[in-house]
């Protein structure tokens, strides 16, 4: 909390959001006396991280015994695929939910794996594709758009939401009968999201996420001098109405207001008006929070509330109120020292920041070499790699820095024709026809040096694994001169796996080569630079 009276300190409202969330989970079982069930929630340990790389590492060390892999292909997508696939052998069970089978769900019969030796029990549950289910879809512009079901899923396919609700309902039943660790959290769960036909009630879930009054409630607005009455069961109009005393339940406060108190699903809005002319389309779908199209929008105005750019008026203070986009808070502009508030209301100090608490490095930019790079010494400083980055050190996390055995820098990317691991797109004949198999792009200079012809089969290897593929000799890759030496770079897509095409002609994951290393803050894996060798196959 900031003591600056002009900071909105918006997170002072956090208890309202959090208690409402707990009430959404446990309803009347969450009481003031039991702390609204806070102690039932699983907690993250201090100093521990929970990224995919950490999960796989824990699996490899035998600490994670069960794995729900929903809409993902971890055996292809995650760094150091050999380690990932080995880690899965330590699982007691694996549940896949997807519209296609993939290399993760079939790890027990993958290349070099003897199925007889795998103890893991594997399940694959067929899921409905996006056009085969109704619900909301959020984009990176924070629009939550409702979409409709166009067709039934083939065979036994169900929406993933329905699969989860049914599994959890069965788990709950089992816990009620047999008990088990942390049983209260499960047996007390509010879990009535199936309709009368026994299917996923998507509207009910949407309303629970929006938030609902659990008791008749009178909300007093002291500033406006008004009192509004809400009935038990009525949907909350916005998160401003959420209560810290357990009178409201809300699955996710930022989505509050997407389903109005009058029962209108604003996510279904399809108005094409654009009054600002800036492409905000305020009546199309719902933008979280409170249909605000640009967050911190008051920062586009000066201290008097006048837009910095009068030609692009996002919103403006008329002297009485804000007109335009939904303002980030109703307060007058900053020039009003008494009532005015800073625009960055979710930040403690209310102002924008280049650096803030929670980051393990910074604030100034610094050059570090990749975790595994061509240099033994950083030419810019005495620190070779980011000292804040976590180092994974299992016996499969090998490294060959500045090595003659693996002299080329490899970078990975996607091709246009496939989506990520290709687990969805490799089954599509039109796409596979255009991009049928794994390739490595190399410069004409490196091709000449290694005697590699365009289109020839080659073996790309790192200290962690191998990726046989086809050489694409191209002018688009050029050697670099680094510290007076020629350094070659090669590039590979990562869209292939052994399971499909069935004849294995697509090759396997490029992540056989990549190291378990990543960003010190986000653990986004370092797929973009590591060391390999390229040889004629």
């Amino acid at each position, binding site marked *: 909390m900031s003591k600056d009276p002009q900071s909105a300190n918006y997170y002072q409202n956090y208890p309202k959001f959090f208690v409402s969330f707990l009430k959404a989970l446990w309803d009347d079982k969450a009481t003031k006396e039991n702390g609204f069930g806070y102690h039932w929630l699983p907690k993250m340990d201090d100093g521990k991280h929970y990224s995919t790389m950490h999960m796989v590492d824990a699996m490899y060390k035998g600490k994670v015994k069960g794995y729900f892999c929903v809409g993902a292909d971890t055996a292809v997508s995650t760094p150091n695929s050999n380690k990932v696939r080995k880690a899965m052998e330590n699982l007691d069970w694996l549940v896949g939910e997807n519209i296609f089978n993939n290399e993760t769900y079939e790890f027990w019969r993958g290349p070099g794996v003897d199925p007889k030796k795998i103890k893991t029990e594997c399940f694959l549950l067929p899921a409905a594709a996006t056009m085969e289910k109704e619900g909301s879809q959020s984009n990176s512009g924070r629009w939550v758009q409702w979409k409709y079901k166009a067709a039934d899923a083939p065979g036994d396919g169900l929406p993933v939401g329905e699969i989860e609700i049914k599994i959890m309902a069965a788990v709950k039943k089992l816990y009620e009968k047999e008990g088990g660790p942390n049983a209260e959290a499960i047996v007390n769960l509010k879990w009535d999201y199936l309709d009368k036909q026994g299917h996923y009630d998507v509207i009910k879930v949407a309303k629970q996420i929006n938030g609902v009054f659990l008791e008749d409630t009178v909300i007093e607005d002291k500033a406006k001098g008004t009192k509004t009455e809400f009935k038990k069961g009525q949907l909350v109009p916005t998160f401003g109405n959420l209560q810290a005393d357990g009178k409201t339940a809300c699955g996710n406060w930022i989505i509050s207001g997407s389903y109005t108190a009058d029962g209108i699903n604003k996510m279904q809005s399809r108005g094409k008006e654009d009054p600002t002319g800036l492409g905000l389309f305020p009546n199309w779908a719902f933008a979280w929070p409170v249909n605000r199209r640009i967050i911190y929008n008051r920062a586009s105005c000066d201290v008097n509330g006048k837009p910095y750019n009068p030609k692009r008026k996002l919103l403006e203070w008329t002297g009485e109120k804000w007109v335009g986009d939904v303002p980030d808070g109703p307060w007058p502009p900053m020039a009003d020292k008494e009532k005015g508030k800073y625009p960055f209301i979710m930040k403690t100090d209310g102002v924008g920041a280049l650096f803030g608490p929670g980051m393990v490095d910074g604030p100034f930019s610094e050059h570090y070499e990749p975790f595994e790079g061509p240099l033994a010494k950083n030419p810019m400083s005495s620190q070779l790699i980011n000292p804040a980055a976590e180092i994974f050190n299992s016996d499969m996390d090998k490294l060959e820095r500045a090595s003659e055995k693996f002299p080329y820098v490899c970078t990975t990317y996607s091709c246009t024709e496939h989506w990520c691991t290709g687990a969805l797109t490799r089954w599509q004949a039109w796409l596979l026809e255009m991009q049928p198999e794994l390739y490595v792009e190399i410069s004409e200079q490196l091709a000449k040096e290694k005697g590699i012809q365009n*289109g020839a089969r080659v073996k790309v290897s790192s200290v962690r694994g191998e990726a046989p593929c086809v050489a694409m*000799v191209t002018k688009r890759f050029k050697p670099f001169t680094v510290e007076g030496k020629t350094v070659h770079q090669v590039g590979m897509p990562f869209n292939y796996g052994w399971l499909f095409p069935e004849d294995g002609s697509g090759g396997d994951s490029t992540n056989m080569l990549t190291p378990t290393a990543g960003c010190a803050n986000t653990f986004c894996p370092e797929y973009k630079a590591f060391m390999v060798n390229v040889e004629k196959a």
Partner: protein
Amino acid sequence: MNNKPELVKLIDTTLCTACRGCQVACKQWNEMPGLRTRQRGTYQNPEDLQWNTWTLIRFQEYEDKDGKFQWIFRKDGCMHCTDAACVKVCPSGALHYTPLKTVGLDRNKCIGCKECVAACPFHIPRYNASTDKVYKCDLCYTRLTEGLPPACVKSCPTGALTIGEKNKMIKKAYARVKQLGGDANVYGDKFVDGTHVIYVLQFKPEVYDELPVKPSVPLSVVIWKDLLKPLSLLGAGGVVAGSFVHYMLHGPKAPPPEGTNEAGKTEGGE
């Protein structure tokens, strides 16, 4: 139908990102299968136009005389000539001018003679031995008559593909060329009485793979179809003349031995 304006599809190669949405959309709309291919050391796949591939993005790595590199993308496909060699040589009437002046192909009438394959100056029609028919783009005729753009144009996210009234599109092409400057040029409006697919090219036509610099209806086709054939119909002597001209027709340009690709298995490198 006859009152419909003459349409031209403009391919602005300078706006193409080679996403190949058009290549897929074409197959989807025309219900053509995707065939198994191999990686041959290029993004271009399939290797060439083929019976199931009526439009193809050609990928070309180009360095100008100063060593400046550019990755060139060109969408290849039927040019829909006003004076179309394929229509001229087609003995069954399968290839025809539509009321929109585009070149249609009625596959029910096609007898698989491959005359069009040999005659087309752009090397567009492709033969499938398993069906004994020829295939090519019809500019999505059934979409055009419903007022819809061809599938390729509909799929294009960058505006590289547009379609509209002939004069407007030609004007648009020249305006773009003027804006681009340098070697930029309009390709298609000046030969075979004008094509209904025109390009804005960034470089001179000779820079591009598989693009004829001066396309024309082959002389043999002109002599046979426009001059001798009418004469030959006058009498039995025409049979002799016909045999002679048939030799002339096939002598200089034989159909490529590509009728074997129905399985689509183009193994190995280039």
